[in-house]
């Protein structure tokens, strides 16, 4: 155990290879959480080196340190408030100018900075040469070259971190950005005013605060106002007159002019340190894009990749899915065998194992899906997918990047909602999450297959397709509605970097995949477990039911009667009789099960709520079924099976259920029910993930409420409208 500790913050542009540097430094010892109050992911890792305990914090990737996006505010506040010992600016060396823009902003903060020129191998490929010593000298900052994806330069970086942390005093920048005569004069004046008026200052670097005030930085203004409102007002008034003066001088907003100066400074540095050594460049990435985003081929290739992703997910995933199903079945048989039948056995087998098991079977699919998504992300293809689909998504007021999460929703909404983490804008994320359940997930398919199979025969396929299509249309309408009401505001500018393609690192793919899969596992142990137990209890209690018939006695009598009849026959003729007996007994048992559920709390709930669903053609049995479907949509089918009291083996049960349904429903009411199941409340797992990913119960509850209301309205329109024009 080392006694000295250093906190290191990693900052850099998106796509600068920051996460790779982070993994190289910390290995797998990382902790993933959220930054307090926002849904931006926070990664932290620890390691020991040179007698120090190092805590590495991976800041969100940003292009700048202004206060326009949540990520920028989070990153800047961490550096200002937590005062890490060292800030490492990760710079994509092959894209020096734009990356240095952020790095110089970091340099302007009152903190120790190291520049890491990552992807150093790309520099030569681009026919360039960067003079690291010159850069270090010009900006008075240590410079380290690394190649993240082959783990080169990590040790050098570590020793640079430790040695700069050991120097007691903060390095005073030799060169700061010079903003030109007029602006510099204002900076000096504002600095003097701050020094005079504000006795307590949250930041030590007054020049920096003056610059931020001249840029009208909201976060800094709020902070000053909070600390000393009256002094802040005085300072702000002085700043405002100077902003007016600058606006008049430059005929533009001061912050824009200052951005210009900063870039000018960066361009000067780049000119001094970068040399072009050859005009010849091998730009593989650009050539690849001539196919992958080609006007004719781009979309077909994209569709193929998506198709392949689903194929792999569901075909390869089917094997481990079978194993898990087998294991769950084996486990419940073992438990039934070991425990005396009764309430504890019921709780464990029908409540816990069945409930958690029904979600656990999706785990392999989720792992594979996330692995594919990680490949898309790490190679840089995700940005191309957004580029290709943006026009389509823009119809709903969404960013192109929302396409993949929505598409994944057809598999399972849970990983799909987790995949919205790739979206930068919070509003885009919430909107994508809210409309995601309208993408009909695979768990709803068994319900459609049952109902469409029972009522539409050969047209079942088209009918099911129409339900999926309805979901998409509703998603567009609802998306547009929410965009113009609840989630109004400026549509985030599309401005998206298309980074060069890169060969992904297996290690980082696995880390990405596992980070998300872990969330899914944790959820299974929590919400799903509790929810399954609750639904089981509702459909099991009260235990003492007044049965209309004494089933036990009837079954006993029947067994005795058949026993007698069989004795009178020769052994060879007994088989037919035995079969007949078994069938009649299982019919009785099914009737008993039906009555148990009917008289359980769940059944009573269904009967109480049935009047609400009656106008959309769903009777009390359907009501109970859709309530139980809250745990997982496919349970609707098994609950219907119980309530229509169909016995026998699997195949026969399916057919018996269909003919029983035909007696109590019409094609129209069946279609209304399919539509209702498509839209109504997302399953428990989805609600839990919505809560987690939006970081608010408000959105989770809203999602439950709006979807159920919408489901009722649409199903009502279909059922009553259909009846009106004489269908059903």
């Amino acid at each position, binding site marked *: 155990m080392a006694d000295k500790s250093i906190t290191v913050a990693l900052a850099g542009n998106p796509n600068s290879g920051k996460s790779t540097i982070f993994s190289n430094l910390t290995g797998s010892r990382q902790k993933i959480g959220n930054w307090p109050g926002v849904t931006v992911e926070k990664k932290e890792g620890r390691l020991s080196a040179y007698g120090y305990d190092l805590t590495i914090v991976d800041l969100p990737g940003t*292009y*700048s340190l*202004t206060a*326009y996006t949540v990520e920028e505010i989070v990153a800047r506040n961490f550096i200002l408030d937590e005062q890490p010992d060292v800030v490492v600016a990760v710079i994509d060396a*092959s*894209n020096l*100018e*734009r990356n240095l*823009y952020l790095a110089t902003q970091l340099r302007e903060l009152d903190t120790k900075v190291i520049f890491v020129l990552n992807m150093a191998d790309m520099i030569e490929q*681009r026919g360039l040469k960067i003079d690291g010593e010159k850069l270090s000298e010009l900006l008075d900052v240590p410079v380290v070259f690394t190649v993240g994806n082959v783990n080169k330069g990590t040790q050098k970086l570590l020793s640079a971190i430790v040695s700069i942390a050991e120097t007691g005093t903060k390095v005073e920048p030799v060169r700061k950005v010079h903003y030109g005569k007029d602006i510099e004069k204002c900076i000096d004046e504002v600095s003097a005013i701050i020094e005079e008026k504000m006795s307590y200052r949250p930041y030590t670097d007054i020049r920096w605060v003056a610059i931020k005030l001249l840029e009208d930085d909201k976060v800094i203004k709020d902070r000053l106002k909070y600390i000393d409102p009256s002094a802040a007002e005085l300072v702000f008034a002085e700043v405002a007159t100077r902003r007016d003066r600058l606006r008049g001088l430059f005929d533009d*907003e001061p*912050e*824009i002019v200052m*951005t*210009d100066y900063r*870039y000018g400074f960066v361009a000067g540095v780049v000119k001094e340190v970068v040399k072009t050594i050859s005009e010849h460049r091998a730009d593989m990435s*650009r050539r690849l*894009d001539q196919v992958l*985003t*080609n*006007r*004719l081929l*781009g*979309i077909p290739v994209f569709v193929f990749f998506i198709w392949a992703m689903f194929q792999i997910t569901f075909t390869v995933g089917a094997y481990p899915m079978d194993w898990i199903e087998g294991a769950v079945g084996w486990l419940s048989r073992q438990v039934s065998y070991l425990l005396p039948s009764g309430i504890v056995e019921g709780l464990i087998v029908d409540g816990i194992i069945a409930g958690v098991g029904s979600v656990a079977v999706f785990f392999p699919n989720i792992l594979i899906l996330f692995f594919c998504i990680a490949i898309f992300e790490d190679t840089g293809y995700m*940005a191309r997918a957004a*580029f*290709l689909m*943006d*026009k*389509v998504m*823009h119809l709903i007021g969404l960013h*192109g990047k929302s396409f993949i999460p929505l598409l994944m929703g057809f598999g399972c909404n849970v990983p799909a909602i987790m995949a919205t983490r790739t979206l930068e804008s919070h509003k885009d994320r919430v909107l994508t999450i809210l409309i995601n359940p309208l993408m009909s997930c695979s768990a709803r398919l068994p319900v459609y297959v049952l109902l469409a199979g029972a009522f539409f025969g050969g047209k079942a396929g088209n009918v099911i397709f129409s339900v999926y299509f309805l979901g998409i249309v509703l998603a567009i309408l609802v998306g547009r509605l929410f965009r113009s009401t609840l989630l109004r505001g*400026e549509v985030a*500018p*599309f*401005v*998206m*970097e*298309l*980074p*060069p393609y890169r060969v992904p690192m297996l290690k980082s793919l696995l880390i990405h995949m596992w980070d998300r899969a872990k969330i899914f596992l944790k959820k299974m142990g929590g919400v799903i477990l509790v929810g399954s137990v609750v639904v089981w209890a509702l459909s099991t209690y009260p235990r003492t039911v007044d049965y209309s018939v004494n089933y036990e006695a009837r079954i006993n009598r029947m067994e005795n009667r058949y026993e007698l009849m069989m004795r009178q026959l020769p052994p060879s003729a007994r088989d037919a009789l035995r079969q007949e007996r078994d069938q009649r007994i299982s019919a009785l048992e099914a009737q008993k099960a039906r009555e148990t559920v009917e008289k359980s709390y769940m059944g009573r709930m269904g009967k109480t709520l049935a009047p609400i669903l009656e106008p959309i053609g769903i009777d009390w049995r359907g009501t109970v079924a859709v309530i139980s479907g809250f745990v997982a949509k496919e349970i609707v089918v098994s609950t219907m099976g119980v309530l229509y009291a169909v016995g026998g083996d699997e195949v026969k049960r399916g057919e018996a259920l269909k003919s029983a349904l035909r007696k109590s429903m019409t094609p129209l009411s069946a279609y209304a029910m399919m539509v209702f199941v498509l839209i109504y409340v997302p399953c428990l797992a989805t609600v839990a993930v919505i809560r987690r990913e939006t970081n608010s119960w408000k959105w989770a509850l809203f999602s439950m409420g709006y979807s159920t209301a919408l489901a009722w309205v649409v199903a009502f329109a279909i059922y009553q409208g259909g009846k009106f024009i004489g269908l059903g």
Partner: protein
Amino acid sequence: MKLSELKQGQSATVVRVGGNGAFRRRLLEMGFLRGTDIYVEKYAPLRDPIELILKGYHVSLRVEEAAQVEIENPRTGGAP
């Protein structure tokens, strides 16, 4: 002239970025400064957005956003 009026394979020089504050600032931070050369690499298959090359990297903008960027000296070629 607007950036959105350029065709694939043309380049031009930035004069000024219009639009609201956050958008302007964002574009400037990404390097859309006066005097910067921009090359139109391609339009997406559905004609929107546009892929551009500037300062040695690739970036995409929606057509409506590119319409906010004023340019001069349009010329064919000039691929970086």
